[in-house]
């Protein structure tokens, strides 16, 4: 049956099967690469465990929308909200792990001289993308879909409709992102391709993060339980409503307002597949491959090395300064990982303005925490991860074959990140606070506290993972996992710490100075402990090939 379908598509079945199996093996194994080095025995079991635990996280993330299926009267409304959520999340995961899933530039170097047609390659890639996104989408929507089967008595047709809507909407999202991403390849010359792709990803992340952050705000379960929506023209411009119409159709509402959106969803999918056909072909992989072979067009900055040396004059310090600065300039992934804090900051700032939580913590008495603090406090941890995991890890042999002090390299990389990334970022946030708080003294003290807390975060991150800069292989999905964990766990840490300060510490000047002094001393003690630990740990570090 499958063979017949594949042959009908004029694709070589044997090649398709071999390439699909290979792609899945590679996805599974590259996701596990980082652990593979540290856990040689039982490696494949570790890979499966990692995947299963990741899927469990996705199931829990999707499960939070389960009550909506019970509560909402209108299946179209609950379907639209749930599908919007799963579509946004799928987009986020595809976006973050995009390069590895859709068109791997290395494919062309390996398969370009094999007798494989572009059509076979396209169907293989499409299969791979759809398997990957289907698994994620299914995990995210599993709980709501199961509930659709049972929430209104046993309704298999409604559950089936929910399942179809979920899977097709996930496929649609993946294909849409493929189109945007790969469409750029047609327009941009290889010398600028990597840079442009990274900026497009950067821009898209505004929408994705925005969708993620604003969606929960729309969910007022009690209100939704009583609400049904009018299917206005404007509402039906939202693609999730097209797929949510399947639920209405299964729930015995079969008017034009249900049939037309459902048909639009199928037409949109057909159009996306048709458009993606040319974009995932092997010659597109060729263009990506050419992009990685061609050096980027960029102006020369001859004084870069000299500028880096102003604050970092020691041997290891200067080496770290040169390395991190140049990685930021030339390594697109690292640059984007650092810059990805900006969309989060802007979105949190916007939300702070909307819910009026941008208030002076010295006068708020424990209330009014802007989510902006989340970005501020999580930034160092995100930076630390970006500074450690890199595609440039093979070049880290240089730390082991030179007389450089590895402990100092680790510590100076932390210091460089703090001075050149965290402090400028805090200064920028400080300017925003000054505009809203109108009290320079409050802003100065508050920013000092935030700087110390940020430094603690950075110290903890280095304490638990004292790795040399850019020395560990980047794992696929590692970024998305860390983002999701950051988004989920961050608020607890941020709000807890700042509530204590605003509620008690800022209200008492003596206590404030005592805590500030205590924090400085603790930071100094932590630094000493960190130095000792880093020196000990770096002695046993080994080059990861």
């Amino acid at each position, binding site marked *: 049956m499958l063979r017949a379908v594949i042959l009908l598509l004029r694709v070589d079945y044997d090649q398709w099967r071999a390439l699909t199996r290979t792609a899945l093996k590679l996805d599974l194994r590259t996701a596990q690469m980082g652990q593979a080095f540290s856990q040689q025995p039982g490696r494949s079991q570790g890979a499966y465990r990692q995947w299963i635990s990741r899927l469990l996280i996705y199931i829990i993330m999707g499960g939070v929308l389960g009550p909506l299926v019970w509560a909402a009267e209108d299946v179209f409304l609950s379907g639209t909200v749930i599908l919007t959520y799963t579509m946004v999340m799928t987009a986020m995961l595809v976006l973050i792990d995009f390069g590895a899933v859709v068109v791997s530039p290395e494919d062309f*170097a390996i398969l370009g*001289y094999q007798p*494989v047609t572009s059509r076979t390659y396209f169907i293989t890639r499409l299969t791979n993308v759809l398997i990957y996104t289907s698994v994620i989408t299914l995990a995210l929507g599993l709980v709501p879909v199961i509930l659709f089967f049972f929430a209104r008595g046993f309704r298999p047709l409604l559950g089936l409709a929910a399942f179809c809507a979920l899977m097709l909407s996930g496929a649609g999202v993946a294909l849409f992102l493929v189109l945007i991403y790969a469409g750029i390849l047609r327009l941009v010359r290889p010398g600028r391709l990597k840079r442009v792709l990274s900026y497009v990803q950067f821009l898209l992340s505004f929408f994705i993060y925005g969708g993620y952050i604003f969606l929960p705000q729309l969910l007022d379960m009690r209100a939704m339980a009583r609400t049904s929506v009018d299917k206005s023209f404007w509402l039906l411009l939202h693609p999730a409503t097209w797929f949510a119409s399947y639920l209405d159709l299964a729930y015995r509402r079969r008017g034009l307002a249900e049939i037309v959106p459902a048909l639009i969803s199928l037409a949109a999918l057909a159009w996306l597949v048709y458009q993606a056909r040319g974009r995932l072909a092997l010659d597109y992989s060729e263009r990506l491959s050419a992009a990685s072979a061609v050096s980027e067009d960029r102006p020369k900055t001859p004084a870069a090395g000299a500028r880096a040396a102003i604050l970092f004059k020691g041997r290891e310090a200067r080496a770290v300064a040169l390395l991190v600065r140049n990685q930021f300039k030339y390594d697109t992934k690292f640059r984007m990982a650092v810059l990805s804090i900006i969309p989060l900051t802007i979105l949190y700032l916007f939300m702070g303005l909307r819910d009026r939580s941008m208030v002076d913590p010295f006068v708020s008495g424990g209330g009014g925490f802007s989510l902006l603090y989340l970005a501020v406090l999580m930034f160092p941890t995100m930076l630390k991860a970006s500074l450690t995991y890199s595609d440039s890890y093979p070049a880290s042999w240089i730390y082991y074959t030179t007389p450089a002090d590895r402990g100092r390299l680790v510590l100076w990389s932390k210091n460089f990140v703090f001075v050149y990334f965290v402090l400028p970022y805090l200064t920028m946030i400080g300017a925003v606070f000054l505009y809203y708080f109108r009290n320079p003294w409050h802003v100065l003290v508050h920013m000092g506290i935030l700087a110390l807390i940020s430094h603690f975060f950075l110290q903890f991150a280095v304490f638990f993972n004292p790795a040399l800069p850019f020395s560990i292989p980047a794992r696929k999905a590692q970024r998305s996992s860390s983002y999701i964990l950051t988004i989920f766990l961050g608020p607890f840490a941020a709000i807890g710490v700042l509530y204590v300060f605003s509620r008690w510490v800022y209200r008492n000047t003596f206590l404030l100075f005592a805590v500030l002094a205590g924090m400085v001393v603790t930071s100094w003690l932590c630094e000493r402990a960190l130095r000792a630990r880093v020196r000990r740990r770096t002695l046993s570090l080994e080059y990861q090939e």
Partner: protein
Amino acid sequence: MIETEGLTKRYGSRTAVDGLSFRVEPGTIFGFLGPNGAGKSTTVKVLTGLLRPTMGRATVAGFDVIGNPLEVKSRLGYVPESGAMYESLSAAEYLELVACLHHLDAKAAATRMDELLELFGILDVKHQRMTEFSKGMKQKVLISAALIHKPEVLFLDEPLSGLDANAAMIFKELLKKLAEQGKTILFCSHILEVVERICTRILIIDEGKRIMEGTAGEICRATGRETLEQAFGMLTGSRDAGQVTADFLAALEKV
């Protein structure tokens, strides 16, 4: 057989291969030489279908590389200079993939895979992932992948890179036997002693252009040099090695 006519490849304003014409007969080990950046790898990439020529024509095994790419690709074996391969696979999995792409019968492919891996002494690690392999072991897998489907034409871009002395010796013998069987072999290498010893004809290119073609003896005679290395140095305008070394050491002393 390999044949090119006015083959040109440009990257923007830079011309990597400039109107190159040559012909390699079956049963020949054809040494393809040039200094770094001369256009050797680009030429090979055009001939293997990895790049499209900007101008000119090329045929491999009687098929046009642009007009019949699949016919060409099913008849060639290629060892790329980059060593690109899916390293997360095991050697067996990678060779099985290549065999599948060439529609080899699974049983025959397995037998041939074992023979090739045995030949290079890595049969016992065939189920190990190649991320754990040394450069030489990966090179042996790449060579095995290039040979598994018994291609008519072989493109070998720095095939000896990373190979130990024993494997290199076996590989050179293998090339001679393959040439005797009538295979066409294009051999790129910077190890001129090896090229001089095993290649039946040699083409030297520089800046994408043909400089000289002939047997090693013919090239030496034409340039009035004793070895291919000296002839190569003269033809590609390299500076006197002794002088360059002296200048370099002097510069080091100054720092």
